[in-house]
Structures are given as C-alpha cells and as structure tokens.
C-alpha cells in the first residue's frame, strides 16, 4: 500500500467528479467527495478487478447503492482504465450511457441504482452465489447513511448473518447529511454500532478519509472468512476536500457555478 499514490488518486477522483458535475450541471457532489477516499483505497489496493476484463468471473464486486453519487465511481473507473477518460465528457448529456444515477451499462459498474435500498439485497445474492458456488470473490456494498432509512436494507441486515455471508463487506459512508436534512434530525441512526452488533454483524469504525486506516480495515474485513458479515462504519465529511462544501447541506443538491468550480478546483489541486 502506497498511501501517497492512493491519496493522489483520491484527489484525481474529486477533480474529475467535480468537472463532470459542473459540466453536466448535475448534483450530489457532496456525497461523491465523502466517499472518494474509500473508492481510491478500494480500487488502488483492495478490490480484485481487472480494467481490461471488467466481467472477469472471480472479480470482487463493488455495488454502489448510493447511486446518486455516481460521479466519483465513474471517475475512478475511468482513471483506472475501465474506459477512456474522454468518454466521461458525456456524463449527464443527451444520449450518454453515463446517467447521473449509476448505470450498469458502464464497464466496471455492477448494478444500476438510484432508488435507494437496492444494493444490499443484491449484494447478499452475490455473496450467497459465491458461497454456494465456492467462488473466492468478496462482495462490497457501499451505502449512504440516509439510505439506512429504507426498510429493505434491514431485511438484509437480518438475513446475512443467518446465511453466514462472511464474504460480504458493507461500507456505510456516514457523512451525517442526507438530501434535505441532517441524518440525526431526519431519522437518527444512533446508536449505530450497537444496532449492527445486535444484528450479529462484525462492526468496524473508521475515519473514512484516513487512507491507511481505510486500507487496513477493508483488507482485514475482506480477508476474514469467519462466518460473519462485516460492516464498516466510515465517518466521513460531506463535501470533503473543498472548504466551502464541507458539512454543508446545500451541497447535496447544488451544482457549482463557474466561480465555485474554479475555487473548488484550486483547493483540490
């Protein structure tokens, strides 16, 4: 693990996502930034994937359930060579496959998402398939905190331990802000650790912007085949990396104007 190159990749993810969102006049940049470091670690050092063979049978699967924050995932896939970077210019444009909610038509993307609470049930199915077929892959599901309001997730949280899905790693991008309010004001998730423990999951808590900590935790969660599914609660900052976006509710939906774009880009360089 080279923390320096991973940190560099995270910066490139943020800059690429920012440009895409700016050009397309789309939204959700705050939630893209909060998970950028996690994505950088996953694609740099944790996921067993091959950009030249995105459908490789025994690849690790990353399911982005918070599909609205897709700009960051498209960015890392482009930066890693799953498709030419130039194609990202079409993001959010008429006729493009790069929809502003994650699209399974893009190489390297496992599922379409947008309607929330879909990723984890599918991830359970993938993990179960790997178990039943005795395949080595690990299934990761990257979820938002607000998304935990959706009941379908809790059906999965109940069932995965029953099925012994120790090849499943859920990552919660806990940036504390959802569409139109703070998580604690909309539906407070706390105490979250105890909830997952009561559901018989192995729980990890990390700073979702500390590269080394993300790496150590995700790689050990991936390696441990101990009969128990894993959930990593990643404490993150919405809009991380740009001071006027950080922890601001506004930047769930706001699209940067030209001045804001230049300022943000300057801070990320």
């Amino acid at each position, binding site marked *: 693990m080279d923390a320096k190159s991973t940190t560099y990749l995270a910066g490139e993810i943020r800059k690429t996502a920012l440009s895409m969102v700016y050009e397309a006049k789309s939204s959700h940049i705050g939630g893209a930034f909060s998970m950028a470091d996690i994505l950088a670690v996953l694609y740099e050092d944790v996921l067993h994937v091959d950009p030249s063979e995105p459908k490789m049978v025994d690849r690790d*699967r990353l399911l982005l359930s918070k599909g609205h924050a897709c700009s960051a995932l498209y960015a890392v896939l482009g930066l890693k060579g799953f498709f030419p970077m130039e194609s990202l210019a079409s993001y959010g444009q008429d006729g493009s496959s790069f929809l502003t909610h994650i699209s*399974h038509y893009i190489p390297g993307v*496992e*599922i*379409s*998402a*947008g*309607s929330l*609470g*879909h990723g*984890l*049930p*599918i*991830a*359970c*199915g*993938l*993990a*179960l*398939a*790997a178990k*039943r*077929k005795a*395949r080595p892959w690990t*299934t990761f599901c990257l979820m938002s905190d607000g998304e935990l309001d959706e*009941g*379908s997730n809790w*059906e*999965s949280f*109940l*069932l995965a331990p*029953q*099925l012994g899905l120790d090849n499943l790693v859920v990552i919660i991008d806990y940036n504390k802000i959802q569409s139109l309010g703070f998580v604690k004001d909309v539906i407070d998730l706390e105490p979250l650790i105890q909830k997952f423990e009561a559901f018989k999951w192995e729980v990890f808590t990390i700073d979702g912007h500390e590269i080394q900590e993300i790496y150590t935790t995700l790689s050990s969660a991936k390696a441990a085949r101990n009969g128990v599914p894993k959930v990593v609660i990643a404490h993150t900052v919405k809009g991380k990396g740009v001071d006027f976006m950080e922890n601001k509710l506004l930047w769930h939906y706001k699209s940067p104007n030209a001045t804001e774009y230049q300022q943000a880009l300057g801070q990320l360089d």
Partner: protein
Amino acid sequence: MLKDIVVLNEKETRGGFGEGILEAGRKNPNVVALTADLLGSMKLQAFIKEFPERFVQVGIAEANMIGIAAGLTIGGKIPYTTTFANFSTGRVYDQIRQSVAYSGKNVKICASHAGLTLGEDGATHQILEDIGLMKMLPGMTVIVPCDFNQTKAATIAISEYEGPVYLRFGRPKWPNFTPENQPFEIGKAQFLSEGKDISIFACGHMVWKAIEAGRILEEKGVSVEVVNIHTIKPLDVEGILKSIQKTGCAVTAEEHNIIGGLGDSVAQVAARHFPIPIEYVGTNDTFGESGKPEDLLVKYGLDTPNILAAAEKALIRKKH
C-alpha cells in the same frame, strides 16, 4: 368441439408449479428456489428435499428476496422467487423495476394465490392488479397458465428462457384438462376450439369458465373460438388478429381487474389493427373480500353465466 375436452382431474395450479420446479431443477443445476416463508403454500417441499443446497429461505422479507434473486443471477443461477401474488408484485414493485426489469436479470417471479379464488383470506391478499403492474414493465414476460398441467409445463419452460418472467397461478383445486407433459411455447396462444361467430379470450382459471360458457353457446348453435392467452406478454398479436378477423367480436375473461389486464391487451390489438365489439369479464375497479372461491366468482361477475351474457352482448353489437 369444446364438448370433447375432458377433465382429467381437479388439482391446484400451484401444485403444477411444485412439480414443475422440481423437474426444472433436475434438468438444470442452476435453478434455485427462494421463498419468503411460504414454502408449504408454494409446494416447494419436493424441490427442497431433492435439492436442499439450492433453496434459500429469506424469511418474511420480499424486497430482500427480489434483490437477492437479482444478485444470484449475476452468479449465473436461475432464481425462482416464490410467494403469494400480492407480495410478489405490489409489495416489491420498485425492487422488480430497478433490480430485475431495468437490469435485465434472469429472475423468475413465481406467484401463487392470485385473484379472487384465494378465497377466505380476503382483499388484503387477493391481488387483482398484478397482471397490469407486471406487463407494464419493459422486458417483463407475463404468463398466466390455465391448469395444473399447463402450470407445470410453463414452470419448466421459463427455466429455458433467458430474461425476467412473472408466472401467475392460484390456490384452489381446479379442472385440469390440458395434456400432461405438454410443450409450452411462451407467447403462443392456445386455440381450444375453432369458431367463426365469436372469440373468447381467457387466461388462468377463467379458461375453464370460458370452456363451460362456450359449450352452452355451441349447444345454441353459436360457433365459438375459445382461446387460452396463457402469455399476456409478449402477446400473440397474430393469433388474436387471426381469430377476430374471422369472428368479428370477442369476450375477454380474467381473474383480474378489467383495467390493465388481459382485456386491455386484447382491446389494444383490436383498436390498432381490426376494431370489433369486445365485452369484458373480470373485476371492475374493485377489491375482493373473504368468501368461498366459487361464491366470490359469482358475486364479482366472473362466472360462466357472466361470460355467456357478455358473449350475447358482443354478438348483438356485432349485428348493429
């Protein structure tokens, strides 16, 4: 002639599903069964006994079941999800829409206890809107077989078809009259009689009622063409057109709301290609209630005399 159709026995269509999934499982090791805590009602016991490692109990959690099934297909399996029709569709529509239909996943959504003939459990369980919900989803195949043997054949056939399928069947014992081990061709209407005066298009349990009504019409000297539309989507447009161009009027019969069901599909074919008088037999913008299946069919106007009355009306309209 319709009078020549012989009832072999009376069996539950869901029993045909149970036998069908067992045979599909024997033919293809990728077939797996999931249930949301209704394995007995869904007649899965034999499959589970023979293939315990290919069964998943997800608990009373239908949304999760649909998602898991979508995930399993990515792993190469052919998941059959099983629960009642109400919980198979309305309860989990968004899961089916995004994670199965839009994603083009090879999930077989198998739904029992559809319609009024669920009986005593009443309106909360008697979905009469599911055919409409499912046929509106792009890429979704919708199959409503008419009896035990056909449900078995359809259950096997869908394992050999790549793509999302909704398979709808029911709870009560019902006349079983189609051949054992019949071939089942998805999207191909089944002509049960040839006639030149009127077409009766039916699906599911109502096919038998259409035969009963057709027999009475035959006795009255009316030449009736009874057609089993076991596949609502893709619809056999050619077969329907061939029939109505000959007969010039039609009745549709379904255990479903006439808004959004088989009747709408048939009417669209007629409206676009060959407008004729059509009368509808089905529930009319209403929920069901508790009762014995046959009593409910009478109360809600889905019985043999209702098909007869509709046919007479259609025949009169044709003359004018």
